[in-house]
């Protein structure tokens, strides 16, 4: 199953490589990984998407907790949460018909066209990862030149927080 794990860690040099090293050394999957400082500059928040059985997930969270730099972590998938990923996608739109169609799809998916040339649209889209997948599928009949995705971030709903 797919899990989103949010990790608060000391904002120290090397913290990221400890997590990455742990995953490669123990053979765990990483689907995506993002990291940036929080409002408290001494803390970084990392969001990691991984897959595995319950046993593997239990080991992953235990091993992450064991890293000295990890302050706290939470498996978002265990509760109600919001997940988002951002994508920038460049597509070739050769004629008016293509432009209209891509514009229409972008609107349906609540994306924005953030850059336009005579033949190219650059589209910004935010949402859960499967929404981004769906958008890629739907514009797929036009030549997609480039896709960049931020990786998933997540936050739990309501009172529950991951903070210290």
């Amino acid at each position: 199953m797919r899990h989103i794990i949010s990790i608060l860690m000391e904002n120290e040099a090397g913290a990221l490589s400890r997590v990455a090293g742990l995953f490669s050394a123990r053979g765990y999957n990483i689907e995506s990984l993002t990291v940036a400082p929080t409002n408290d500059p001494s803390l970084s928040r990392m969001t990691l998407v991984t897959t595995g059985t319950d046993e593997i997930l239990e080991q992953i969270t235990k091993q992450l907790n064991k890293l000295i730099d990890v302050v706290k972590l939470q498996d978002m998938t265990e509760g109600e949460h919001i997940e988002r990923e951002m994508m920038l996608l460049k597509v070739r739109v050769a004629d008016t018909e293509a432009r209209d169609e891509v514009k229409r799809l972008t609107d349906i998916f609540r994306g924005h066209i953030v850059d336009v040339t005579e033949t190219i649209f650059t589209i910004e889209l935010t949402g859960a990862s499967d929404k981004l997948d769906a958008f890629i599928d739907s514009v797929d009949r036009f030549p997609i030149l480039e896709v960049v995705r931020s990786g998933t971030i997540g936050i739990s709903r309501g009172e529950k927080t991951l903070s210290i």
Partner: protein
Amino acid sequence: MELTGAEIFVNCLRDEGVEYVFGYPGGAVLHIYDALYKQEDVKHVLVRHEQAATHAADGYARSTGRPGVALVTSGPGATNAVTGIATAYMDSIPLIVITGQVPTSLIGNDAFQEVDSVGITRPCVKHNFLVKDVRDLAVTMKKAFYVATTGRPGPVVIDIPKDVTAERCEYHYPEKVEMRSYNPVLKGNARQIRKAVELLLSARRPMIYTGGGVILDNASQPLTELTRRLGFPITNTLMGLGAYPATDRQFVGMLGMHGTYEANLAMHNCDVLLAVGARFDDRVTGNVEKFCPMAKIIHVDVDPASISKNVKVDIPIVGSVANVLTELLEQLDAADGEVDREALDVWWKQIEEWRSMDCLKYDRSSDVIKPQYVVEKLYEVTGGDAFITSDVGQHQMWAAQYYKFDKPRRWINSGGLGTMGFGMPAAMGVQLAHPDATVACITGEGSIQMCIQELSTIRQYGLPLKIICLNNGYLGMVRQWQEFFYQGRYAMSYMESLPDFVKLAESYGAMGMHIDKPGDVEAALKEAMQVRDRAVFLNFVTDSEENVYPMIPAGAGQNEMILV
């Protein structure tokens, strides 16, 4: 007063109560060596190879329970130390390893003798630090000792660039440190402990299985008390030997790949298993699918990640082993029920039947020296009270099987990583920590050559070690696997061109002895024990094709042992 980083470093060691630093100098640590030179609180032991510095510090730590300290230079100094760091990591030994680093301005430039020590050691340390500012040095040192020695212990590396050791600042060594990201759980959950007591009292075929965690946490006393109080059979892992007296009736021997018939069968047939400070390593469990098929399992460990990693357990208890065992005893006294003595008697009858197989028997009438015989005699001659280190191979298993350890911290070996070359340097650390004790290193002619240069260190410090070389002319453990699993194709397991160990030892100022008759074994050992002013190298020419029995082949179940 402002001190240099090097002086601060040495003061930290002093204030931490460090007695010995094992190390080897080089460009990046010259300021530190200069500071060491100017004081007398911290003694430096000069090894001959950085691997030995880490093993010696490790031996010191294992035999005393205090952290061992090693100091090496940047680049090759650091890479040479890696084997010792990984060895300590696998066995959870508290070690502080300081690696010199090129000046901060050169880091990343492929400078002379630069390696990314923090990167290279990351997967085999509990934690590591790069100190970029002299003002962080003292607090980093404090954190390093704190992290290395608490919770599940382990090695910590501190990488210190040369310029940091020259810069100056005020010295203040913090009394204690707090780390919001590191707070090991030490007290076991009372409800879980109560459930454990209930399960233990319901057992009909109980078994206690304990590992290195009991030794690391100095928990032998509550373990022994609990075991006696319950009357249950107990087995120790290779890392856990000595936690419970081996000469006691309730001890059924070591378990695992080369464990006793009775220990492995008792494990296989038990209905309740109390696992303490052990990690269900593959050399212990054999095939996990077939491991303790009938047992409900209680697992006590300070490291939550060790619980249900290899084998799913029924009652996990996270906490310091000593705390939890003490609490188990208390709750046991307060409990209503009692152990089912009748069922236990039946169980013990069964175990005694297995024990009567005498699985460790060997040919005592042989006219070549049997390696087992040497270990038995060593046990007798030392009154069972020596510190025994070992290398890795058959000799290690025979040492574990035939030297009956009654006390913790007497058996010192590389169980997790299985590092050949560990034994003799580790023995140096043990002997320095216990100058009056008998310290013997049981080794093979293969392993001893991996750190043989340390005979020079041993000479320099006048260490009266007894090196018990069980010389079978083969990389015996490799040869045994080739005999069993590769139809006797002995690829590269024969040791040709061995040195004359007696002459070699003598050239290093040690006493050399060559023993090739069973009748001479005891006298030679006795003679060696009398020597206190230098080391003795005893080269025992042993049966070249002896195998270690019993053996559970890799991947087999605990009840699928090969006996003699």
